[in-house]
Each structure stands twice: as structure tokens, then as C-alpha cells.
């Protein structure tokens, strides 16, 4: 057995697009699991997968794919959690991993109660030390970091929600063999089945990268005056997700789902660029995991300059177009 690896399977919940394609975050999570165990990584797909998906999952490191037919209801966290519980009971893995968005965290908490096991959320780093799994995360608005040992026991499988943005998803290897896709029977609990989806719409923001998983994030603050076109002009060529401060959401400039911070999404991109963001603690508590912080803001007293790796005191309407033009030139 290779050093510093578990010797038991890991189950990974694979989120998918409406077309049945695994999300980039899901593939990154499979890669994370692949690096942790010498045994099988089992991908759990709630709902159907597009036929090519199993090869993509194999390339990312999965050895098996379980597909649970949840009658299109996997968006309900309790339904997806029931699928995780069924997969854990079938595979008996050392640990189950889910993405660390709100749904993933709810799934982890619910599944852990049903399994009689432990859970952790917002984990940024996982490693095996000896035969023990160690999970690290930032707490108290990113001012402290903690490391937990997770006793990976197959009779009480811990469920952990992980931010996959720290890992680059494996690029699919050419000619990778297809792996078996097996149906998984999921007994739905009455309380999960009782949640009725009256209506559901996916916003336009879904076109870009997912905020919680993105490697680069451009954030729209008060100082952008609601100029979403300006924000897109920088975010799109960088393949960055667009986030926002609470003020920008309150103003109705952008969907509430874009809100980053204490009551919004916590993000851990390698690059954060704040446009017209002053840096109130309610916002900056959600960006402490960012690798590099860049801020453009016309208020030289803005608190974000105290934490920015690179700050520009200036008018976003002048700085951003020049930045975009120069980036296009430098990157060819």
C-alpha cells in the first residue's frame, strides 16, 4: 500500500448539470479522493448521466459510478442525502465527500445524522497522515485555521463537505477505459419525499463558472454603480465567476445568489478581484480563503486595501477597461 493513503473506498457525490454532465467541482472532488486512497473511488451520481460522463469520471480517478434514479428530485437536499446514505451503506467507504455549497453542507449534516456518524463542512484541505485522514479549514471569519482528525470507520462513515477550488480538476485522459455504471436503489425517507418543488428556475448566472468552485472571482461592489457590463468585461476573458457584495444584491444589480460573505457564499479562489468593494467585515469574512486579493476602489481609506495583495485607488470605470485591454494584449 502506498504511504500516506487510505486503504478503503471513498464515495464522492457528483453534482451534474441539467444535461447530465459532471460539474468541474465534482470532477475536482473525485481527483481529491483519488489522491487520498489506494482503494476505489466510487462516484455517486444522483439522477442520470450523459453517456460520455463515465469516461470523464474515470479519467478524474473514479473506478465505479453509481447512478441513483431519484425521479428528478435530487435538487432537494434531503433526497440527495438519502442517496448518499444508500451509497455509504452499499460501499462502506472510509469517508464520503460532497461539495461545500449550501446544498452540500445540508446533505452532509443530514447524512451524518442518519448514519450515526460525524460531519465537517467547508474543508479546504484533506490529507492522509499515517493511516489517518486530516481535514483543515478556516474558522472565525478566516482568522483561525483548524485541523481535525477524521476517524475513517466504515461502520460510521463521516461525511465531509469540501471546497474543491483548491484543486485543479484532472483533464480527461485520452482513451481511458469506460467504467461500469451501476444502478443504486435509494429508499427515500418520508420526510425527504414530502418536500414539494413548486417551482424552480436556474438563473442566467449559471452560464459562468460556479462561484463557490471558481479559481478566479470578480466581485461587484457598490462602486461599480451597477455596471454589470463592466464586471463581465473583466470576468469573461478570465473565465472568472461573478460575485457581489450585499449592497450590490440589495440594489438589485445582480442575483442574491452572487452574494459573497457571512450570509452569502464563502469562496476560496486563487485570484479575487474586487471592483468598487470597500471591504466590510461581512463581506471579507467570506474571502479569507482567497489566494491573492486584488482591489480597485476609489476610496483610499477603504478597509479592503489593508488586506489586498495589490490595490488600485482609482475609478473602476477608467481602470477596468484599461486593465482588460492590456490583459488581452499581454495574453495574446
Amino acid at each position, binding site marked *: 500500500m502506498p504511504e500516506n493513503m487510505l486503504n478503503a473506498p471513498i464515495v464522492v457525490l457528483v453534482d451534474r448539470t441539467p444535461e447530465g454532465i459532471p460539474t468541474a467541482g465534482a470532477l475536482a472532488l473525485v481527483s481529491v479522493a483519488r489522491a487520498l486512497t489506494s482503494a476505489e473511488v466510487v462516484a455517486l451520481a444522483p439522477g442520470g448521466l450523459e453517456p460520455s460522463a463515465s469516461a470523464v469520471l474515470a479519467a478524474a480517478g473514479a473506478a465505479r459510478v453509481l447512478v441513483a434514479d431519484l425521479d428528478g428530485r435530487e435538487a432537494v437536499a434531503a433526497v440527495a442525502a438519502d442517496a448518499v446514505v444508500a451509497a455509504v451503506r452499499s460501499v462502506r467507504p472510509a469517508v464520503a465527500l460532497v461539495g461545500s455549497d449550501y446544498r452540500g453542507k445540508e446533505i452532509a*449534516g443530514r447524512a451524518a445524522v442518519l448514519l450515526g456518524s460525524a460531519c465537517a463542512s467547508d474543508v479546504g484541505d484533506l490529507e492522509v497522515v499515517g493511516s489517518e485522514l486530516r481535514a483543515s479549514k478556516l474558522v472565525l471569519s478566516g482568522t483561525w485555521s483548524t485541523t481535525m482528525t477524521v476517524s475513517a470507520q466504515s461502520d460510521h462513515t463521516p461525511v465531509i463537505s469540501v471546497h474543491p477550488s483548491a484543486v485543479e480538476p484532472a483533464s480527461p485522459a485520452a482513451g481511458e477505459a469506460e467504467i461500469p455504471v451501476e444502478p443504486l436503489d435509494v429508499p427515500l425517507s418520508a420526510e425527504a419525499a*414530502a418536500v414539494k418543488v413548486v417551482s424552480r428556475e436556474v438563473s442566467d448566472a449559471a452560464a459562468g463558472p460556479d462561484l463557490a468552485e471558481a479559481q478566479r472571482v470578480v466581485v461587484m461592489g457598490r462602486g461599480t454603480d451597477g455596471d454589470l457590463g463592466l464586471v463581465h468585461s473583466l470576468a469573461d476573458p478570465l473565465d472568472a465567476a461573478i460575485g457581489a457584495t450585499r449592497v450590490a444584491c440589495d440594489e438589485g444589480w445582480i442575483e442574491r445568489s452572487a452574494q459573497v460573505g457571512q450570509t452569502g457564499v464563502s469562496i476560496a479562489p486563487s485570484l479575487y478581484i474586487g471592483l468598487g468593494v470597500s471591504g466590510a*467585515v461581512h463581506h471579507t469574512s467570506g474571502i479569507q480563503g482567497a489566494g491573492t486579493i486584488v482591489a480597485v476602489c476609489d476610496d483610499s481609506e477603504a478597509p479592503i486595501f489593508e488586506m489586498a495583495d495589490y490595490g488600485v485607488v482609482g475609478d473602476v470605470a477608467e481602470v477596468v477597461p484599461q486593465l482588460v485591454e492590456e490583459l488581452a494584449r499581454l495574453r495574446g
Partner: protein
Amino acid sequence: MKIVVCIKHVPDVQSERRLEEGRLVRGEDDVLNELDENAVEAAVALVEELGGEVIALCMGPEDAEDGVRRALQMGADSGVVVSDDALVGADVPTTARTLAAAVSKIGGADSGPGDVDLVITGMASLDAMTSMLPGALAAALHVPALTLAGSLEVSADEATITRSTGTVREVLSAPLPALVSVTDQANEPRYPNFAAMRAARKKPVDVWDLGDLGLDAVAEAGIAVVDFTERPAREAGVIRTDAGEAGRELAAWLVENNLV
């Protein structure tokens, strides 16, 4: 309608929060978790509309009663504090099972919600920020969970929420009894006036321990904090004041540092 609102007494986010021996230091500058004020407001407003009673439930050290008193000032009718040395450092599933047992006792049942129609929580506690408790508590109670409500409507037998999570906007409903967690978008918490503060002093608060709930000692958590470090504050880096070239300079810096 019988509504249990779950609240938490947490260190003020503006205070100097820290860990000692892997555990959050409590009891110095604690307040009712700001996001739970929305849960209390939602519960009190529903009872004003539909009739019934609101019971504020809090697990924590004994001084967590202060958080319950705040909920009583905001209009809750009575309070319960679950406090036991064995619960110090309890993880999410343990907390969920303990709160579920307390809800059952309030509802007059051995398990499940009994005659409690609705459990309302905030979206997250500002100490641990896991957001996992509402779903875990619903699982322990075997009731449907409607989480992260941006708005909430309740009839005699059904709860309906609208919410916006990730890239999805949706309307969800479930039959009562159910659990609902609310975001800070759901309402504007009321500020208690003098009369409400005075009235709150006369409202009953029970203090229960694990024995009162018929629970044994807490099981091995399976996850233990082994290392905890205060991170150095992020330091200010390069700051440029735009003199007409800042966009180009920033582009060059991003490219030089392989960030784009």
C-alpha cells in the same frame, strides 16, 4: 400553532474571538446569534397571524439563558435552555440529536415533533458557520426541511418558502410538522421596547440537562480538532493610486505573477 425557535448564544463577531484547546472561548462577550433574530421574528410574526405560542430553545452553557431572554423580549412566550457539561464542544449531529430530544419533550412525545407544528432556525450560527444544523435537526426529528427561506408562508397544515441558493431560485413546500431555516432576507427583526423587556422578565424559562431529555452521555464524535492556529492577518501589499496607467500596471502584475 406551536412553534419552537432554535437559537444560539454566540461570541459577538465584533469581539476578539479565539480558540483555546481547540474550542471557541465563550462567555466573554456573547450575544444572541444575529442570524437567529430573523428566526425569532419569523416565529413571533406567524403566531401573531395564526395564533399559538413560541418556545425559544437554546443549547449552550448556562449563561445562554441571556440569549433566550432576548428572544422572550422579542415576543417568544417561554424558553428552554439545554445545558450539560457533557455537551461542551458538541458536534453538529450531537447538537441535532439533543435539540431534537428537547423538541420532542416540548411536543409531549418520546420522539419526533409531537404537537410542535413548526421548528424555525436561523440560516447559520456566526461562531461555527457550518449551516449544517437545520438539515441535521430535521433528520433527527424526521420532519421535512425547508432551508434558507428568503420568505415564508405558513397555513394550518403547510409551509411554503421561496429561496435563492447558488444559481437556483425556487419555491418549496412541505406539510407540517416541518423545519424551516430563514435567511437575513426573510424579515426585519423587531427591536424590543421597554414594555416588552419588562414583560419578558415574567416569562418562564426551563433549564434541562441530558438526563431530563433521557439521553445518555454523548457518543464519540469521530472528528477531533488536533491543531488550531491563529492566522497572521493579511498584510497590505502594493497600493497604487491611478495616475492614468494603473490598469496597465495591474495587468502586467497579474501576468508576471501567473495569476491569469
